[in-house]
């Protein structure tokens, strides 16, 4: 009979295989109980209904006069300023990321690599350091305004760009490198004639992708005073000026949609 082939020793294993999903269920249940009971929900404020109503009202009837009034503090100029922060920040960050990427890229096959390991840790540290705190630190150094935003974006983006670049280097095709090497090229020539041309389209593609993210962060950095559209946004929310919030939201959504579409088209052509 088939059943007798299961020996006594493997019985615990069989039970484990059959029932170990219960452990997962219990673990998930414990985590969710912890999460739900740990938060004390404040519930809705009494004013929640009226506030949401006025937000919807403001979104439906935005403050069109704010779009352009020639003062330099209007929607169009601040959206352009936001884009400028993101563009300049991403560009500087891409330049700084290249050496970081070569530092963090794993070359050989050894399991523990001191150079690439240390580079990866540094990049993780930069990535985890909150961008808002960076912006506040740079505001101390250069004063409030979009310059601080540029610096915050350019330092914070290194974390992600460096990681993406280093992975691109790890996965790149070494054929061109080897061809130049076998023809007697030195390491400088290999880098300029083989490595860079192979890797550049991917680098540019990642930079464009990071630019899309930077546009989003540049639009909120203003909330702490680092320039761009975020500053009038937070003022409008604090003063409950919902038509103004509505037009700024529209502006941000439109800006992000246009930039995402443009960048996606460019990236499709690159890779």
């Amino acid at each position, binding site marked *: 009979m088939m059943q007798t082939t299961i020996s006594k020793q493997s019985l615990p294993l069989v039970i484990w295989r059959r029932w170990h999903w219960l452990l997962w269920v219990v673990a998930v249940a414990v985590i*969710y109980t*912890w*999460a*739900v009971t*740990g*938060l*004390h*929900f*404040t*519930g*809705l*404020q009494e004013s*929640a209904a009226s*506030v*949401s109503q006025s*937000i919807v009202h403001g979104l439906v009837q935005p403050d069109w006069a704010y779009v352009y009034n020639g003062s330099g503090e209007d929607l169009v100029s601040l959206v*352009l*300023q936001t*884009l*400028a*922060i993101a*563009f*300049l920040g991403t*560009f500087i960050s891409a330049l700084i990321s290249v050496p970081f990427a070569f530092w963090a890229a794993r070359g050989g096959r050894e399991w523990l690599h001191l150079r690439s390991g240390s580079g990866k840790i540094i990049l*993780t*540290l930069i990535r*985890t*350091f*909150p*961008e*808002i*705190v960076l912006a*506040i*630190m*740079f505001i*101390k*150094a*250069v004063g409030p*305004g*979009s*310059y601080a*935003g*540029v*610096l915050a974006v350019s330092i914070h983006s290194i974390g992600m760009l460096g990681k993406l670049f280093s992975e691109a280097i790890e996965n790149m095709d070494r054929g061109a490198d080897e061809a130049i090497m076998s023809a007697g090229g030195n390491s400088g020539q290999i880098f300029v004639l083989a490595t860079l041309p192979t890797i550049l389209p991917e680098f540019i593609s990642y930079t464009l992708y990071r630019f899309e993210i930077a546009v*989003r*962060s540049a*639009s*909120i950095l203003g*909330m*702490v005073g680092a*320039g761009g559209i*975020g500053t009038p*946004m*937070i003022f409008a*929310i604090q003063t409950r000026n919902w038509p103004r919030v509505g037009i700024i*939201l529209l502006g*941000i*959504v439109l800006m992000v*949609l246009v930039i*995402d579409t443009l960048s996606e088209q460019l990236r499709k052509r690159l890779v």
Partner: protein
Amino acid sequence: MTSQAPHQPWLQRWHVKPIGWTILLVVLLVASSRMTGVDVGMFLSNLDQFTALLTRLSQPAWDYLPVIMRPLYETIQMAILGTTIGAALALPFALLAAGNLVHNRWLRSGIRFWLDLVRTLPDLLLAAIFVAIFGIGSTAGVVTLAIFSFGMVSKLFYEVIETIDMGPLEALESVGAGKLTVIWYAVLPQILNQFVSYFLYTLEINVRASTVLGYLGAGGIGVFLQRSLNEFNYSQTAVIILATLVVVMVIDGISNHLRRVLL
């Protein structure tokens, strides 16, 4: 062997495209540096203030650690609940946006456009609005993270659904199964592992995001971050940043391990 060089169109011979791109890049760079008022000299002349801040950041006040344990837990709890609510909301939308399940093009592109709109909104901006609605506290944070992860998860989900094997679906449809039966028995089993993997990935991102949401009053560790920064108490800020770093790394590690087991 041909003695003539191959004919080059003038676009190629004069390198019109690369030169054009370079000029565009330079113009954009100059324009944006003028618009943002970038001034390297100012940064260098104020460098002492910056380094003073850095030295104060490098002396963490460890006795502050017990104070921030509770809000740190709150941050993780917010991230878990927000991601779960967002993912649960995202599933039906993802099914409706998948090209291989919904053949009505108008419905599909309508839903996709709606999801694109949701994805354009940055997390802190959502937090500012929801704090105005729900008041200061973690409820605003959970709602913010739910909406934020809804936008991200739904896109990841419908892209997975579009890659599934259509065989089981056709088998069930050919014996007359209804839409819900097909989704339950043919679609979900194929994508469940990927779903859980993307859910964990979103959770990682949300843990990072939730650490700053409190800056605008949406609960969690960000509240303390803002307080310490406002009081210029940078040694407390340092402890908060380091503790956040540890939490993010632990969650990343667990989630990475689980995802490797799943896929």
